[in-house]
C-alpha cells in the first residue's frame, strides 16, 4: 500500500486528513482511489441480527460469516506434501565456482590439512544417490548454489580417516553430537558422500522420528518381540535400490533365504530383490533381512548406515502393544538392526560404519544418551578437568566435583568422570546398554580459517556480495557464537539486508 504522503500520487489525501479518518475505516486495505471522506466503509450491521436471548440475558450481535469462495483448482493429493518436501539442489542463477574440486575416491584417502576450509563439490552420480537416500533435507540451503558442495572441516578430515580405517573388518560406531545448527546432519552428508565415492553401499534413515512417531503401520513379527514397519521398509528398499543401483545391479543372489515367504529366482540381482520387497510390504522385512545377508556376504563392499535423530530411538516409541503398554524403540525391527551395529553387538564382516547424529533443535531429551555421550567423550579425551575461572568460581556440572571443591580449597583442577545420577528416574536401561561403547565426535563452531573458506565459497557463488576479508569473517564468526555454521549462514546468506 503506497504511503499517503507519496509524492507521485496527487490524488492521495494529506496525512492530517488520514489520521481523522482512520477510526471510520474498516480493517480491509483501501483499493479505491477516491478520497476517504467519500469512501467510508459501513460496519456490517446490515448483515447481523440482534438476537434476543432468554429472559434476563443480554442482547447479542450474531454476525453471519460469509463462507469463503473457493476459486481455482485444488492441488492434487500428495502435491502439497511433495512441495513441502522437495529438495532443490541446483540454482542456475548462482555462479559456478571456478576451480572447485570434486570429492573423489583418492581425495577422501588423502584429505590433509591443506583441504581445511575448502568446499569440495559432489559428483553428479553421488548427488543422485544421496538424493535417493534422502540425505539432503528441504530446510538446508542447497537451493542457493549451482552444485552441492561440502565444506571440509577438521572434523571432516578425521571422519574421512575413520572411514578409510573402517574399510577393514570391524567397522565404525560413531555418534555425531553438538549444539543446534553446528552441522551434524551435514557431517552425515559428508560421511555418506565419502562412503559412496569409495564404493560403499549407502543406507540412510533421514529422520528417526518417522520410525518412532507412530505415523507408519506396524506389525508384530511372529516368534520374536520385534515389530516390523512394513510400508516404511518397502519404501526404504526402493530408496536403497535407487541409491546403490550402480553396485547392486552387479551383485547376484548367492545364498538360500528360507525366511522369505515367496520363492526367489536363483539368479536375480540385488536390485531386483529390493524391487520385490518394495512391491509387497507384507514381505518387505524378510526381504530386507535377505538383502542384508547378501550384502554382508564375502567379497561385497563395505556398508554405511546413517541415522539422524538418535534421541528418538533412545526412549519409548509412540506405538502400543495389544496390552496398551508402550513399545520401546529398540523393539522396532529397523531400529534394532541399526543399533545392533552401533552398539557393537554385531560387526560388519566387510567393513562398514554405523553413524548416528543427534538432533538438537526440538528432539526429546534422553538422559541415557546424554550420559553415554559424556562418558564416551571422557573415554576418548580423559576425564573432565574442572577449573576455577578468573573470579575464583568453580566451573562444574557434576555433584562429586562440587563436593570435592568444598572439601579442598587448594584444588585447582580435578578430573571428574561422569556418573549416573542416583536420583534420576528417567534413564533408559536399554539405551544405556546399547550406547555403552560408542565413539563420539562433538561438533562445535568453525575455526576462522574454515569460516573464511566457506564465506569465500559463498562470495564466489555470487551469494555473498561483500569483500571477504578478516573484518567481515570475524564479524560473522563472532555473531555466530564463535563460528556456529548455521548461524553464520543465517547472518550472511539468509538475512539479505
Amino acid at each position: 500500500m503506497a504511503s499517503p504522503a507519496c509524492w507521485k500520487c496527487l490524488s492521495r489525501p494529506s496525512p492530517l486528513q488520514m489520521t481523522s479518518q482512520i477510526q471510520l475505516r474498516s480493517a480491509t486495505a483501501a483499493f479505491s482511489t477516491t478520497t476517504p471522506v467519500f469512501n467510508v466503509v459501513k460496519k456490517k450491521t446490515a448483515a447481523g441480527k440482534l438476537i434476543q436471548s432468554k429472559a434476563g440475558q443480554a442482547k447479542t450481535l450474531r454476525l453471519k460469516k460469509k463462507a469463503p469462495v473457493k476459486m481455482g483448482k485444488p492441488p492434487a493429493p500428495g502435491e502439497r506434501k511433495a512441495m513441502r518436501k522437495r529438495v532443490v539442489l541446483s540454482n542456475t542463477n548462482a555462479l559456478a565456482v571456478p576451480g572447485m574440486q570434486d570429492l573423489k575416491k583418492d581425495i577422501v584417502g588423502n584429505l590433509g590439512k591443506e583441504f581445511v576450509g575448502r568446499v569440495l563439490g559432489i559428483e553428479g552420480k553421488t548427488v543422485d544417490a544421496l538424493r535417493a537416500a534422502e540425505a539432503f533435507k528441504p530446510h538446508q540451503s542447497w537451493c542457493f548454489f549451482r552444485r552441492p558442495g561440502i565444506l571440509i572441516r577438521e572434523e571432516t578430515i578425521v571422519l574421512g580417516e575413520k572411514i578409510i580405517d573402517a574399510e577393514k573388518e570391524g567397522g565404525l560406531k560413531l555418534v555425531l553430537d553438538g549444539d543446534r545448527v553446528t552441522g551434524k546432519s551435514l557431517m552425515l552428508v559428508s560421511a555418506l558422500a565419502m562412503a559412496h565415492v569409495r564404493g560403499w553401499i549407502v543406507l540412510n534413515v533421514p529422520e528417526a522420528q518417522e520410525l518412532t512417531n507412530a505415523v507408519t503401520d506396524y506389525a508384530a513379527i511372529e516368534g520374536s518381540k520385534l515389530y516390523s514397519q512394513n510400508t516404511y521398509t518397502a519404501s526404504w528398499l526402493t530408496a536403497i535400490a535407487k541409491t546403490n543401483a550402480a553396485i547392486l545391479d552387479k551383485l547376484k543372489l548367492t545364498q538360500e533365504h528360507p525366511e522369505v515367504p515367496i520363492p526367489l529366482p536363483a539368479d536375480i540381482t540385488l536390485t531386483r530383490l529390493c524391487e520385490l520387497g518394495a512391491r509387497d510390504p507384507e514381505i518387505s522385512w524378510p526381504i530386507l533381512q535377505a538383502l542384508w545377508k547378501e550384502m554382508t556376504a564375502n567379497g561385497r563392499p563395505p556398508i554405511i548406515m546413517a541415522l539422524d535423530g538418535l534421541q528418538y530411538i533412545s526412549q519409548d516409541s509412540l506405538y502400543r502393544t495389544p496390552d496398551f503398554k508402550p513399545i520401546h524403540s529398540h523393539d522396532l525391527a529397523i531400529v534394532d538392526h541399526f543399533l545392533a551395529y552401533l552398539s557393537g553387538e554385531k560387526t560388519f564382516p566387510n567393513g562398514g560404519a554405523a553413524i548416528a547424529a543427534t538432533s538438537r533443535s526440538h528432539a526429546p531429551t534422553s538422559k541415557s544418551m546424554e550420559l553415554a555421550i559424556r562418558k564416551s567423550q571422557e573415554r576418548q579425551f580423559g576425564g573432565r578437568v574442572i577449573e576455577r575461572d578468573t573470579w575464583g568460581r568453580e566451573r562444574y556440572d557434576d555433584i562429586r566435583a562440587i563436593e570435592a571443591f568444598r572439601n579442598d580449597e587448594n584444588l585447582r583442577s580435578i578430573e571428574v568422570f561422569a556418573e549416573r545420577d542416583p536420583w534420576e528416574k528417567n534413564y533408559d536401561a536399554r539405551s544405556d546398554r546399547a550406547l555403552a561403547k560408542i565413539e563420539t565426535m562433538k561438533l562445535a563452531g568453525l575455526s576462522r580459517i574454515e569460516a573464511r573458506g566457506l564465506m569465500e565459497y559463498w562470495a564466489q557463488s555470487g551469494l555473498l556480495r561483500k569483500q571477504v576479508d578478516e573484518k567481515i569473517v570475524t564479524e560473522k564468526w563472532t555473531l555466530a557464537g564463535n563460528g556456529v555454521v548455521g548461524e553464520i549462514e543465517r547472518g550472511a546468506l539468509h538475512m539479505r539486508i
Partner: protein
Amino acid sequence: KSLETFYGIGHQHSSRILAKFHIFPGARLGALPTKTVTAITAELSTMTIETDLRQSVQGNIIRLRDMGSYRGRRHAMGLPVRGQRTRSQITTARKLNKVAKQN
C-alpha cells in the same frame, strides 16, 4: 480417528482398540485389511455403545426420577444436578438436564 465417531468411544477406548489390532493412529480406513475391520466390528459389538449406551443412560435418569430422588427431581426440572450454584450460570443445565432423550 473415525472410531471416536461412535457414541461411547472416545480417545481412551479408541486407542486401546487400535493397539489391540496393531493399527497406528494415522491409518486410513480404506487401507486396513478386511479381516481387521471385521475384527474391530466384532470388538465393538461386545461393548456398550450407541443405542445401548443411550438407553442405559436414559434408563438411569428415569430410575432416579421414579424413585423420587433429589437428582431425579433436578433432572425433571432442568436444573443443575451436581450441587452447582443456581443464582447464575445455569444455561447448560437448562439445555441438557432433561429426562427425555439425550442428544
